[in-house]
């Protein structure tokens, strides 16, 4: 239990009412915080440490059942370490180095995070700038812009699959490209093999994720822009600054802290990407679109390699921590990233 240094258990000698309040608060402050802390310790910190332990074993699905059977049949030593059905080993971490599929999933994940953040931030910033202008129907438009964010990612992925189908008889997008090539009288019709081409498949996934999450960027950047007082702009206009100068010299610098925050949040979220990939390409072609989370999921659930899956999960965790730390450090250096 946390020790409490602010309210040491001494008799205040004050009137009864104060005593009652102080004593009550000493208990209540724990009552208020404990449920959250207990749940996080039990369901977050404990699994975190446990999976670190598992990553140093060769635990497999069903291993403990074999061990239990061995124990029931009265075999002395049981199976594996302490009869638990697995052995302690550092081999998982050796295996990481030679696993080419892992390396490509790490690369894919980095690509998703980097390009995902870039695309979503730049378009989000543009749309926020547009929504920050007064125009008729702005409130309705703002609400419409929000819609993709609330869609189930699995559903967004299916919708994406309909659009990125390369058959112009099925997909409106492919149909549009065909009509466009006809109108431009091109030799060959534009036809993009979205999900079957090594290069295009990640692009399709990036687009689906961007469609869904640009609203998040827009919403927060817009809130940041609206918090900028109008007189700063007035002063700049009086000094003769044009629109571009105002944007580059005033809006962007003021938005820097909030920009770093949204980029950090979206980046950390994209590290977790799995549902869009499962529904669209399933990781293929080859493992060109497979993300780390999907790979871990397959190792754990399809192959039952609990030990190895945990070791890969720790690779992902280390990547996430490096990303977040670098980001927070840069943010502090540039000034003003709120971490409290």
């Amino acid at each position: 239990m946390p020790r409490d240094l602010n309210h040491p258990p001494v008799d205040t000698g004050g009137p009864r009412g104060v005593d009652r309040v102080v004593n009550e608060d000493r208990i209540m402050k724990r009552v208020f915080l404990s449920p959250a802390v207990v749940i996080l310790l039990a369901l977050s910190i404990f699994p975190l440490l446990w999976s670190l332990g598992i990553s140093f074993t060769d635990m497999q699905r069903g291993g403990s059942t074999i061990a239990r059977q061995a124990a029931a049949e009265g075999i002395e030593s049981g199976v594996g370490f302490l009869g638990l059905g697995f052995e302690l080993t550092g081999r998982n971490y050796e295996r990481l180095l030679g696993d080419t599929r892992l390396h490509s999933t790490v690369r894919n994940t980095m690509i998703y995070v980097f390009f995902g953040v870039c695309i979503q931030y730049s378009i989000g910033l543009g749309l926020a700038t547009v929504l920050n202008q007064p125009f008729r129907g702005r409130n309705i438009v703002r609400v419409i812009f929000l819609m993709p964010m609330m869609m189930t990612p699995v559903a967004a992925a299916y919708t994406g699959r309909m659009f990125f189908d390369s058959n112009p008889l099925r997909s409106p997008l492919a149909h549009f490209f065909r009509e466009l090539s006809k109108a431009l009288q091109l030799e060959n019709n534009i036809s993009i093999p979205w999900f079957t081409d090594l290069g295009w498949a990640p692009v399709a996934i990036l687009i689906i994720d961007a469609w869904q999450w640009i609203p998040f960027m827009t919403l927060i950047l817009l809130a940041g822009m609206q918090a900028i007082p109008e007189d700063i702009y007035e002063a700049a206009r009086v000094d003769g600054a044009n629109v571009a100068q105002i944007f580059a010299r005033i809006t962007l610098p003021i938005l820097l802290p909030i920009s770093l925050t949204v980029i950090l949040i979206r980046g950390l979220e994209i590290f977790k990407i799995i549902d869009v990939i499962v529904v669209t390409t399933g990781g293929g072609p080859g493992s060109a679109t497979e993300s780390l989370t999907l790979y871990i999921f397959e190792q754990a659930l399809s192959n039952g390699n609990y030990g190895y899956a945990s070791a890969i999960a720790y690779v992902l965790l280390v990547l996430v921590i490096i990303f977040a730390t670098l980001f927070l450090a840069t943010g502090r250096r540039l000034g003003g990233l709120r971490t409290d």
Partner: protein
Amino acid sequence: MANKAKAKRRSWRSSRRPLWQSALLYAIVVFWCFIVLFPFYWLGTTSLKRPIDVSRGPKYIPYRDFQPIPDHWDEMFGSQRESTERHFRNSLISAIGSTILSVIIGAMAGYGLSRFRYFWGRLGWDNDNIAFWIISQRFLPPAIFIVPFLLLYNFFGLVDTYPGLILAYTMFNIPFAVWIMRDFFDGLPVDLEESARVDGATRWQAFMRIVLPLSAPGLVAVAIFSFIFAWNEYLFALMLTNYQAITMPVLIAGQNNTRGIEWWFISALTLMAVVPVIIMGLLLERFITRGLTAGAVKG
């Protein structure tokens, strides 16, 4: 209402910008609305098309390009009724259950962090450290929980049960709930609680009768976020359910394998899963903005 509208119109008219800027502005707005809305339109029309209209298309406008039929919706509420209802109910129960828990636990912890001073001596952590630790849990990759959760849930018999899903989603929702609520309580004056306590109310009574009613907007924001997260979650629903407790996202993702790709049916199912949440989200949009910008934007 009328006043507000008038003020808005005035502000629109008073902003004198060159015509090309206005034109560009509206062009971008219309273009992006199209990007956002067309996929929904396509889902809607596809759910009303005959299979032949889907594969020999693309058909855009009902009654002109194709004859809409209600068959797939009939199927969803007819021959597939049992399945649709069960999965919808599963999503609803696990989302509502975890929402209630997250709101309660998040409000309590947020209040604690806002009103008391903690100091975890052994770690040297004060309130800010604790709050940062809690929010950092939100950003841990869920992949790291896959194996421990499988083992834990098997051990406690929680696989494929409502309590299992509710517990997992609550764990994921708590950090954000604490974060939003702490921010909200920080902006609430303490005078009211203090005077109530001088009058003899306990801390708990002051919290329940005075603080909570005042913080309805924050609670609503937390509730929407928790609900949408739990409703849309895929990875843990896939991992921790087999049959009884399967939720809508897993059902939709599974259409791939079990029936071949029947776009018309998937579209109907997708709309069924998406539309209620979007309507709720749009009605409560201002709370979403408020919640998302908590802590990110001051003021």
